[in-house]
Structure formats: structure tokens, C-alpha cells
């Protein structure tokens, strides 16, 4: 391994610090704000609804982008989870379904 591999451009270091800094502020910021807001029953209900809403909003665009094959895999994952309640099985069957569907040309 050469010295060049372990060198870093000064501007690039600034980019990394900037990206890492803003990402950490977002990671810590929501938590920080919530410690300073009064948690009324309404806010609490909103916070409780947040996880599901985030997952739906994360997965749905992936499905829209990925088309029918990805949609089927997500259905497989959810169905396996409902029946067997084991995340690793849900993930395994979904990946197997994806490999199979793609081998079939879907």
C-alpha cells in the first residue's frame, strides 16, 4: 500500500466534516428539541404514530421505483412476518423471492 492511499485532500476533509456535522445535528436535533417541548397527549400520539409513518414513507417509494418484483417481495416479507413473527425469516424469503423473480426475468 502506498502513501497516496493514506493521503486526504484538504477540501475533501472539509466536505466530510461538513456532511458528518450536519448529519449529526439532524441525528441529535430531533431528540434535543423533543426534550424541550412539553409532551402533551397530542404530541405523544404524534410521536407514537411517527415510526410507522416513517417506515411506510421509506418503503413505498422503493416499491414504486422497483416495480412489481419489489412489491411482491415486500408482500412476502410482511406475510412471513405475520405468520412466523421472525424478522430473519421474512428477510430471507423476501431476498429469495427477489432472486427467483429476477431469474425469471421479472
Amino acid at each position, binding site marked *: 500500500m502506498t502513501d497516496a492511499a493514506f493521503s486526504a485532500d484538504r477540501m475533501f476533509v472539509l466536505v466530510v*466534516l461538513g456532511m*458528518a456535522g450536519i448529519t449529526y445535528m439532524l441525528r441529535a436535533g*430531533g*431528540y434535543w428539541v423533543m426534550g424541550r417541548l412539553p409532551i402533551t397527549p397530542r404530541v405523544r400520539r404524534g410521536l407514537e404514530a411517527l415510526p410507522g409513518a416513517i417506515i411506510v*414513507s421509506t*418503503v413505498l417509494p422503493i416499491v414504486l421505483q422497483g416495480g412489481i418484483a419489489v412489491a411482491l417481495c415486500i408482500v412476502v416479507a*410482511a406475510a412471513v412476518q405475520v405468520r412466523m413473527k421472525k424478522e430473519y425469516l421474512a428477510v*430471507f424469503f423476501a*431476498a429469495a423471492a427477489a432472486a427467483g423473480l*429476477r431469474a425469471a426475468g421479472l
Partner: protein
Amino acid sequence: MSEKNVTLSLKGCVQGSMLCLPVFPGIIALGAVFGTVAAQKGLTFLETLMINSMVYAGASQFVAMEIYKDPLNWGTLIAMVGVAGAINMRMLLIGASLRPWLGRVPAYQAYPGLFFLTDINWLLALAQYDKGERDWGIYLGSGMTVWAVWSLSVIPGYFAGSLISDPKTFGLDVILPAFFAALLVPLWKGRRQTVSWLAAGGVAALTWYLVGGYWSIFTGAIAGAVAGAYLDD
């Protein structure tokens, strides 16, 4: 409802590490692809390790690499940092929803711990909290494990080019969304979730069609939370 104290133990950390095992193939594949992209864009090995382990947010790293041009100027720098802010905006909401869980952890532990916040350990921690778990080692252990796996996975990708020429062939690209979908299942309790998720899905889909990119996570999540907050049953 009696509230147990929030604790931190090695046992909890190990349990958290074990819980994220199913997503290892997905993380490793994604990290390896990032290493390959970074090598193709001409980053040095050290630069690749730095951006990967310090930013530690996959989607924003990939988009930032699309913008990256050598030599860097201030415009590119601002664009890359801005893109990290926009794509990782959802972290605000994820962190906010952890407040009831980690709110009783001392600040000097909670704030360093928040560096390891990512969708995977957040979701695992919340699922365990729902079941009555109060050892936040679940969150910390899974976060540090995912970070370590992510940090190491970039190395083979950087040196070996694309080890996995196309992750899609093996279905590796559906591992993370499938994991999320599986963890969504036990969160459903009744009408409140149905309405909230429909609101989130509708707004997210609409945003995705109109704007594209990653804004849909943010808008959909807010819509779902507001719907959940204002639905009185």
C-alpha cells in the same frame, strides 16, 4: 402504567447486535458498492474510510458521490453538505421519536450514542421498547455493530471492484426494505395506524411523483404523525 428505569448493560448490547444479524448481507452489499463507487470516483483509501465511517448515512453518501468532482471547489462542497442535510432530514423525526425511550438516559451518554442513530437500530430499539424492554444497550449495541459492519464492508468493495457485480441478482437490494416491512407488522394495532399509514403513504407517493428523491420520507412521515396525533378514538 408502571415505568421501569432505563438501563444499559453489556447483555443488552449483545442482544442488540444479534437482532441486526438478518440485515448484515444487505449492509455489506451496500457498503461494498459504496467502496467501488468511491474507488471509481478517484477517492483515496483514507478519504473513502473517512466519508463512510464519519458520515455513516448510506443514501446521502451515494448522492454526494454523484456530485463529487475532483478538484473540489466551494460550490461542490456546499452542494455535497446540502444534499447530506436534505436526505438525512428524516433523522430529525427518527431522533424525536426516540425521546420517550432515551429521554431518561443521561445526556453525556445519550448524545454520543446518537451518532450511531440509523434507521435499522432505531427500528429495532422501538420494536423492543414496545415489548417492554428498557435496556438501551439494544439501541447502542445494534448501532455500533451496524456501524462496524458498514465501516468494514467498504474495504473489499474499494479494492476488489465490484465483488458482487449486481446485488439485484441475489435479491440483496430488497433486504433492507423487507426488514422494514417486517418490523412494521407488529406496529399495527388498529384504526389509528391504518389512517396514519394511509396518510403517510398517500403523501409520500404524491411527493415521490412530484419531486422525486428522498423528500417523500420527510413529508410522508409528517403527514402520518399529524394524522395520528389528531385522530381521537
